[in-house]
């Protein structure tokens, strides 16, 4: 009897076109992305409803803090969802995991930004939609970097600390662009800093993934 493996139909050959979407879908499901998407929708709704009901005043510290906290929730949901349920062994599965991580961040991030921008549309937030976009981007970057440093479960630590520092910055009208929530919406330096932090977060988590403590 001769083996017919070599004469087979090529079932063992991996095709990115055929398997890619399925692999991406499985990757997203393993990261509980559907729950995160639901969270983004809730964040968008919370932003819209609190602005419409007047819970967010037109000026003052609260006018910035409430949207910032809602944006932080979305950012942290995104970063937490990047946590691998398999831990370190997943890194040994090949190079494709890097692309999967990158795609997951981009797609999930787009959904988060979309939900928050939709929530901000039609409202009179103190600094408008640009500030929502900038602040969400920066906070997402911070959350991703926090996830890379402390683990997906602790991605909230750095954004939380940043929010407390930002509150002081808004109160005292600090001008450093690294504390972008205290800067006007169209401040180029603040936007650049937020974008840089986001880019750093995306690159680090794409390449290295989130840090997962062995005990978790």
């Amino acid at each position: 009897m001769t083996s017919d493996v070599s004469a087979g139909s090529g079932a063992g050959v991996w095709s990115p076109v055929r398997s890619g979407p399925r692999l991406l879908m499985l990757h997203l499901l393993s990261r509980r992305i559907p729950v995160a998407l639901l969270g983004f929708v809730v964040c968008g709704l919370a932003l819209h409803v609190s602005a419409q009901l007047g819970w967010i005043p037109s000026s003052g510290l609260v006018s910035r803090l409430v949207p910032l906290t809602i944006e932080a929730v979305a950012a942290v949901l995104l970063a937490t969802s990047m946590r691998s349920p398999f831990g370190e062994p997943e890194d040994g599965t090949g190079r494709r995991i890097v692309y999967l991580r990158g795609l997951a961040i981009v797609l999930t991030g787009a959904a988060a930004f979309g939900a928050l921008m939709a929530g901000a549309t039609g409202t009179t937030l103190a600094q408008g939609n640009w500030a929502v976009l900038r602040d969400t981007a920066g906070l997402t970057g911070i959350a991703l970097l926090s996830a890379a440093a402390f683990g997906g479960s602790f991605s909230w630590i750095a954004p939380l600390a940043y929010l407390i520092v930002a509150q002081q910055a808004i109160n005292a009208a600090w001008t450093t662009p690294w504390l972008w929530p205290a800067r006007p919406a169209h401040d180029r330096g603040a936007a650049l800093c937020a974008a840089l932090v986001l880019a750093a977060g995306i690159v680090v988590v794409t390449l290295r993934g989130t840090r997962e403590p062995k005990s978790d």
Partner: protein
Amino acid sequence: MTLTEAPAAARSLPQAHTGRLVRLEARRNVMLLLIPLLALLFWFDTYRTVLQTPPFWALRGIVMQKHIMLDFAPLLAGVAAWTGSRDGRRGTGELVAATSRPRWIVQTSTWAATTAWAVLAYLICVALVYGATAAQHAPGSPAWWPVLVGLSCLPAFTALAFAAGAFFPSRFTTPLAAIMALLLLEVGFRGASHGSSPYLLIVPLNAMPGSTPAADIAVFQPYLPDLAITQVMALAGLGLAALAALGTPPGAGTPVTRRTCTGLVVLGLVLAGTGIGLAGTGRQQPTGMVAIPALHKAADDYEKAYPPVCTASTTPTCVHPAFRKYLPAAQAAFDPLLRELAGLPGAPTRVTQTASRYTGHPPISLSGPAVSVALAEAIPNDTGRSLSDAELSRNFKRAFDPPIVAAVIGNGQGRPDEAQAAVIEGLLIAAGVPQGPCNGACVISDVGAARPGSAAYDAGTRFAALPAATRHAWLMTNLAALRAGRIELGQLP
């Protein structure tokens, strides 16, 4: 020797097991890793902010209560939720259910270890703030109620978050617990500050409605503990309910334990509901503190007796002994004005400090030869540095000199007319009240003095340029007519 006669093996008490469990949990608790971050946040937010305020115990206690809770509670909520979700995350729930200790006890031990570290860190931070305040020779005695609220808040937040983590061990529970704690505290504090609902006073950031009180809060009157008592009650109730809820699921303990825990949940919720309900009846007193009718003691409604500290001039300025260091600045602010007004009918000859009012009262009240000023209202709380006597004096002049002059010159019925406005402006210029815009935190009293560019302002400037004796003589002759509104602008010298 038969088997039954053999000595029983030494058995340790269940309490000893639980104590050892807490020690084990404490040694490997994640809180230890977060203490540097907590220390950093505390230094950046709480310590710097509190030390920027004048050294008065109640003021610093109230400011500390707000900032330290904001730094600690969300972070601890996140940590507690993560710790609480441990068994669920690892899928070891069934495994630990079969261990010798009831699951409820094990979970409570984990919570206790986390909370113990948090409370220890909190107490160290409080000691640093209060130690620094004592080193600055703050008058009076420390305000302990804000500390007690914090001591109730941390276990309550960790218990609630721990229970959330235990019941919903999702990867999203931890971040949501942390950020929601922050949102809850912020919204509750700001809502109470804006008077949205009296029930929001229960949020432990609030020692009183409003952001920062005046420096003399609880200096002239005792610190009212009413709101703090309701907060402690509500927080203890919520914490108790959350912890007891851990003992209610099947397998968490024996049937008796579960029934007891259910009872404790109800008790906790009743306690929390009572606290929240009582806070809703709270009303801010003129002294700034909140009184709750069901808890309020009439004995607390008194002014503390004190021997005032006065300057030795002919127009003395007297302050509360706690404000002794502000006396030179106050004297520099009031002396020139009182000299201008000396001898005029109804003019004050003495300035005394009174408590700040939070019910829209004017900052001064003139009665007989003495004028009472709420001096602390013009002492900035958040300048980030100590003001010099000259700066403080300018602040006092801006805040109090205009209403004093207006009370003497005006008719006491609304805005002054043009001639009155000109004379008020002239006297303020003569007394050296700063005319430029206020740079920094200061209170400006608008009493209708003439505005630059107006004819009345020009007349006021001319009046101020007169020799002091001429000004005084004219006022002595014409004050009655001026008050009655019978002097036209053109009639001013």
